[in-house]
């Protein structure tokens, strides 16, 4: 085991897959000469050269679509968006072309492409730069969506994503790039679509992915001090979503809080909460609660930002609410 930063784990996955398969290449803004806006791709130009590590202009629609075309014609592109906030101008290529061409062509076209980059907020970057897009992409059939919370998951899942013949959205976080974790040194992959119980507990189920996983663990630590044992489930993959693992847990705890960095309307929490009430109605001793962003764009001011961003305190309050503790 080696301790790797999140960015190093992602880089390791990229390097391994590029060594393994010449059809894999990466393109995006500043990925090559600059070694990545967030240094994820550091050293890759040196190893793989400008044919496979390609800088692009600020043309998300154009290079995203070139990635899609290259995937149709036999390559396995990894398209990096500097952040997913900028993928919005290129979204048509993802939700219409990458997601649907296989279907519209009656299965003639393969679409082995990964769109990856940081997602959601990264501190005080204001309203346009702080959106969590996982629920949006998960809404569209044809895509898989992954948003890992820890380096080891990230590495194994990214390798699976690159090998997958479907288009995969792989979400990261500027704020997690520096986080460290022991990562197995041997080659491994992690199957897409499998949640993981990351902390066991019998009092309440907390479901949290991506950056919110870390908010949830803080809350769980505090709850434990108060004698409440929270079970934390990290779905890791958003689509397909492993609802079975969540429901298994709820059969034990009978209570659930979902922590989600999206705005509330139709976010992950809404979807998962809906499924839980539908499929585990009789196991619920309390309604499912959610902790999300408020339905407000990201403010700049620190005072407001701190209030905007989901906190462990909110998770604790929600856990207490579903347990009917004062």
């Amino acid at each position, binding site marked *: 085991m080696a301790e790797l930063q999140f960015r190093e784990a992602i880089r390791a996955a990229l390097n391994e897959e590029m060594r393994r398969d010449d059809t894999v290449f990466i393109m995006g803004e500043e990925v090559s000469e600059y070694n990545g806006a967030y240094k994820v791709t550091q050293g890759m130009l040196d190893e793989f050269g400008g044919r496979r590590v390609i800088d692009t202009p600020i043309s998300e629609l154009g290079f995203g679509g070139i990635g899609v075309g290259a995937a149709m014609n036999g390559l396995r592109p990894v398209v990096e968006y500097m952040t997913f906030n900028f993928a919005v101008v290129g979204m048509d290529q993802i939700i219409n072309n990458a997601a649907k061409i*296989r279907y519209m062509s009656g299965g003639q076209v393969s679409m082995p492409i990964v769109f990856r980059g940081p997602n959601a907020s990264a501190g005080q970057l204001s309203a346009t730069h702080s959106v969590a897009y996982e629920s949006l992409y998960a809404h569209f059939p044809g895509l898989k969506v992954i948003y890992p919370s820890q380096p080891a998951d990230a590495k194994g899942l990214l390798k699976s994503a690159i090998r997958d013949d479907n288009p995969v959205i792989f979400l990261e976080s500027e704020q997690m790039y520096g986080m460290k974790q022991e990562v197995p040194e041997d080659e491994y992959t992690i199957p897409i679509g499998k949640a993981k119980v990351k902390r066991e507990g019998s009092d309440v189920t907390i479901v949290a992915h991506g950056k919110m996983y870390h908010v949830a663990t803080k809350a769980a630590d505090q709850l434990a001090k108060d004698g409440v044992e929270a079970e934390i489930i990290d779905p890791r993959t958003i689509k397909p979503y492993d609802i079975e693992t969540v429901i298994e847990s709820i059969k034990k705890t009978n209570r659930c809080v979902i922590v989600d960095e999206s705005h509330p309307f139709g976010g992950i929490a809404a979807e998962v909460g809906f499924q839980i009430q539908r499929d585990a109605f009789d196991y619920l001793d309390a309604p499912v609660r959610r902790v999300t962003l408020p339905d407000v764009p990201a403010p700049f001011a620190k005072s407001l930002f701190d209030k905007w961003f989901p906190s462990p305190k909110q998770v604790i309050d929600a856990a207490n609410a579903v347990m009917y503790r004062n």
Partner: protein
Amino acid sequence: MAKTKEAEGFTPTGVVYQSTELPEPTSKSHKDLNLSKDDLLGLYRVMYRQRRFEERAMQMYQKGKFGGFLHLYMGQEAVSTGAVTVLNDDDDIITAYRDHGFGLVRGVSSKVGMAELYGKATGCSRGKGGSMHFFNTDEHYWGGHAIVGAHIPLGAGIAFANAYREEKRVTMCFLGDGAVDQGSFHETLNLAKLWNLPVIFVVENNGYAMGTATKRHTSTEIFKRARAYDMKNKVVNGMDLFSVIEDFREVVDEVREDPQPYLLEVRTYRYRGHSMSDPANYRTDDEMKEFQDIDPIERLKTYISRHKIANKDKIQEITDDIEQEILDAIDYAENSDFPPEEDLYKDVYVEDDFPFLT
């Protein structure tokens, strides 16, 4: 109704512009273009197939035999036909939703094409795509795309993959005049030029984007768009097959030799409305007649007669053949089965056991 009152407001209104001025057709003979007599008859067959396929498809649509949109290519057949004449079989083609012609010249048989219009399981896209999504990737035909401009980067991406593998394949990416106003056009042309991709962007300027004359939607001549990228470019007479072949061949050869993108503005005309629901009141009968007088299929037929490539009977034979082929295609489509219900969930993802959400 075509009006003639003065322009007022922002977009000029009320003025019907001469939408496309054609360059002089080539004066080359078929021999100059390295086409044999058989080639010419083959070309006639291919062109007429496209025409007749659509005339019949139109009838079937009007009879309510199938639904969806139906955008007819009639009048533009010299473009698709010229393209496959000069391209190698493993060169790549992609286009927008006015795609029947390209399908038919790239291995989609009349049967399988008609079946797709009918939404049958035997269709070229298994009935999943319909008129706007003819695909035949085995023969390097990448569809049929319905969002205006969205397939332009795909064309460049296909060329990118060829360049990446150091294959000498050339990609032709066809688009309508309306698509040149999309951001995707601009981003892709810049990228293609920056990366020297072997892709030819062929704008089929048929004078209109839906009801909007070319000069009402784009601020200057389309070929000038290339100047923004120092990209090579040319205007082509799309109503004359020989002109298309001559110009396309020159450009395809050049791009294959010296990989770089090219912008071609092919001036042509669509005879029918934008789709079946469009009465095309925005243009004059005179304009229509002007183009029908230089119909590319009639022109080829005349050439064949005049140069005694074949006699009337031979031409009639081909015409009859095609007539029968299309009637058979209709039978085939009508007698084919719809896709079974379980196909709904097929080919959304590669795997057969994807856990679909309910």
